[in-house]
């Protein structure tokens, strides 16, 4: 057998050839679908088959039901649904957009819309709004406000959720408090006193029953950090180019959150108490009677009904500071959006219009016990009465009328991370690393820099 050693040059040539062949194979056009047989002359022209890509984090059952219903009406349209775990869609959407292969439609966290739209990552839906006669006034104003950037509509609000003060009536009763009177959320000092009164120590010195921890995640809180700021009249932005994280009202708010945590034993006790409760349904310290008060979302109504059916609790909107009869709230939630670069706008708009119907909104609202962004669906008796707590559901849904919304800005993510999320920003204060003034000053620096860079990058 004759063998010959391959020289380095020859080897590299072989490698390059192999790579080239593989790349060429990868780039080769996909063979065209065989043309359908010609229709007989009498039959109406066949509709062109369309495949749409639909991405979402969650809502699987509802989306799949809607897709099936749409398929029955439009057999030529196939909607491929891809669902992601919470927080995992954004990186994939970003890379798909970069690769020029974004999905046709997504369910997106609404406060992120400005970030995507401001960077050219979303398709304006003005044509859709005009074509299908979508009226902004049909939606909760807070939810519609988040869907608009620079005068254009970039999303259609889908569902929303409010934040409220919850209190455990049995704990209140045991303390000699009126269980039917909501906590005095308008009086921040009184809230601290109440938190102290309701906090009970265990024999080993740890917290047995926690009165109240106002912060996100800690003490099972969710979204309160924004609510207190709005209740105190604070804003996060002076205008679209100027951050206002060092707003004295925000400093006051952060100081109050710190004081409240200190009053119930400091961050050490608060975090020790909180880390014992995973943030999944069925493991609520509030439901288990170990947390007297919390600020959390209306989705807890269905959770309590399922896991803590005997729980006696109250739920009320948070009051504006110093005002007995003025409330504030937080409209979070999701929307439908069409990423930039999506090519099949016509069938996508048709499908979006189907999703945006009254029946669709109602179906999602009932199925997930969330608040539809379409007011008519949110206020329908069918939805209200589907709740295990119809009166509280009605109050929650109606509260969207005056609910507030997160700042609509391309740097909303930075603001949220710093202001509400555990880990950074607000943790500087809670863990005693910085005073509220110092923390807000540093947050201002970070957010303003991000804003400046954004505006510089869009050449304005």
């Amino acid at each position, binding site marked *: 057998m004759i063998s010959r050693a*391959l020289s380095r040059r020859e*080897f590299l040539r072989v490698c390059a050839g192999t790579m080239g062949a593989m790349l060429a194979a990868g780039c080769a056009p996909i063979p065209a679908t065989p043309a359908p047989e010609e229709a007989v002359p009498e039959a109406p022209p066949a509709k062109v088959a369309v495949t749409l890509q639909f991405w979402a984090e969650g809502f699987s059952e509802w989306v799949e039901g809607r897709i099936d219903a749409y398929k029955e009406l439009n057999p030529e349209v196939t909607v491929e649904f891809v669902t992601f775990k919470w927080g995992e869609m954004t990186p994939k959407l970003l890379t798909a*957009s970069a690769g020029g292969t974004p999905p046709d439609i997504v369910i997106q966290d609404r406060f992120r819309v400005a970030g995507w739209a401001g*960077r*050219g990552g979303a398709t304006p839906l003005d044509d859709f709004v005009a074509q299908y006669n979508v009226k902004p006034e049909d939606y909760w104003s807070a939810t519609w406000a988040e869907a608009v950037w620079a005068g254009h509509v970039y999303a259609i609000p889908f569902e929303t959720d409010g934040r409220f003060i919850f209190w455990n009536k049995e704990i209140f009763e045991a303390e000699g408090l009126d269980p039917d009177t909501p906590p005095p959320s308008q009086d921040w000092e009184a809230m601290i006193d109440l938190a102290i009164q309701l906090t009970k120590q265990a024999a080993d010195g740890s917290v047995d029953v926690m009165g109240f921890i106002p912060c996100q995640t800690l003490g099972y809180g969710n979204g309160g950090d924004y609510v207190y700021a709005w209740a105190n009249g604070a804003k996060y932005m002076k205008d679209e180019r100027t951050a206002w994280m060092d707003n004295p009202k925000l400093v006051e708010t952060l100081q109050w959150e710190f004081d409240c945590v200190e009053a119930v034993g400091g961050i050490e006790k608060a975090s020790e108490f909180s880390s014992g409760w995973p943030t999944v349904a069925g493991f609520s310290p509030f439901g288990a009677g170990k947390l007297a008060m919390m600020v959390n979302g209306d989705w807890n109504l269905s959770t309590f009904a399922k896991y803590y059916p005997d729980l006696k609790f109250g739920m009320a909107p948070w009051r504006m500071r110093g005002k007995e009869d003025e409330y504030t709230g937080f409209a979070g939630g999701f929307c439908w959006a069409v990423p930039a670069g999506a090519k099949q706008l016509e069938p996508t708009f048709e499908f979006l219009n189907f999703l945006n119907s009254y029946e669709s909104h109602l179906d999602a609202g009932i199925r997930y016990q969330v608040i539809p962004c379409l007011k008519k669906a949110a206020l329908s008796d069918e939805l209200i009465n589907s709740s295990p707590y119809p009166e509280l559901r009605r109050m929650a849904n109606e509260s969207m009328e005056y609910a507030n919304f997160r700042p609509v800005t391309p*740097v909303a993510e930075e603001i949220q991370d710093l202001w509400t999320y555990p880990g950074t920003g607000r*943790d500087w204060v809670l863990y005693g690393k910085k005073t509220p003034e110092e923390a807000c000053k540093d947050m201002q620096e970070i957010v303003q820099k991000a804003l400046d860079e954004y505006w510089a990058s869009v050449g304005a």
Partner: protein
Amino acid sequence: MKSIAFKGLRARNTFWFYIFASPWILGFLMFNLGPMIASLYLSLTNYSVLMPTRFVGLYNYQEMLKDKLLRISIWNTAYYAGLGVPLGIILALILALLLNHKDLRGRSFFRSTFYVPSIMPIVALSILWIWLLQPRYGLINTFLHFFGIKGPNWLGDPVWSKPGLILMSLTGVGGNMVIFLAALQGVPVHLYEAAELDGANWWNKFRHVTIPMISPAIFFTLIMGFIGSFQVFTQSYIMTEGGPADSTLFYVLYLYRYAFDYFKMGYASAMAWFLFIIIVTLTFVQFRLGTRWVYYGGQ
């Protein structure tokens, strides 16, 4: 003639080297090299993925110098790697030595038991460890309680959060343990016999025979351990979100936020290249130091 034969052998060896290495070479050329070169260029731009890209020179690198959170993330990562890697190696070596005893009953069972956690998905492991490290009811603190020790609030205290994650990283020592077991079985028995004849006790045999003979395996695990630890991400992403108070804000978590949350892929690329330089430098230093203590048989 002799010279020609030598050339032929060398060329043949080279050929087979490239053939065997070709899956990696092709994969690297097709999927890694391009993105690496691209990211080097992107680190000099304001690339946001979605918007037109503008060249900004060294702006991103200059901004990194001013970034206070970046400095914290470097410290956190160095702490995690500096403490976690040596601890992991020592524990893996101890386990390997124990499980290398021929007269240990159920050796295979113990080897499998210690190895299995190292192949568990890191996400599942992270969720499990949230429970293990729970301050009041967690298994770790319950165990400490038996000895009258009040365990810390591992993931809720900035002082204990990194040690908590390091403790968790020790779950993965099974991989290194297997490497050490293989290395230990390669140590010639006659070396121990000769040492015994010279009156060496177990420590002397360990110090002067075992360690030098398995030093290439220790060196390998050290290099790989540091490279892996500097890229730690999932644990803090899932368990602590970088907190409390930035105490588990690791470098790659911070980089990820810039890349995918804040649309600053240019800055993230600059961070990635800085991390690459750190890892390359550390590896280079380790290789240089390795010549002093790593023993390759026959050299």
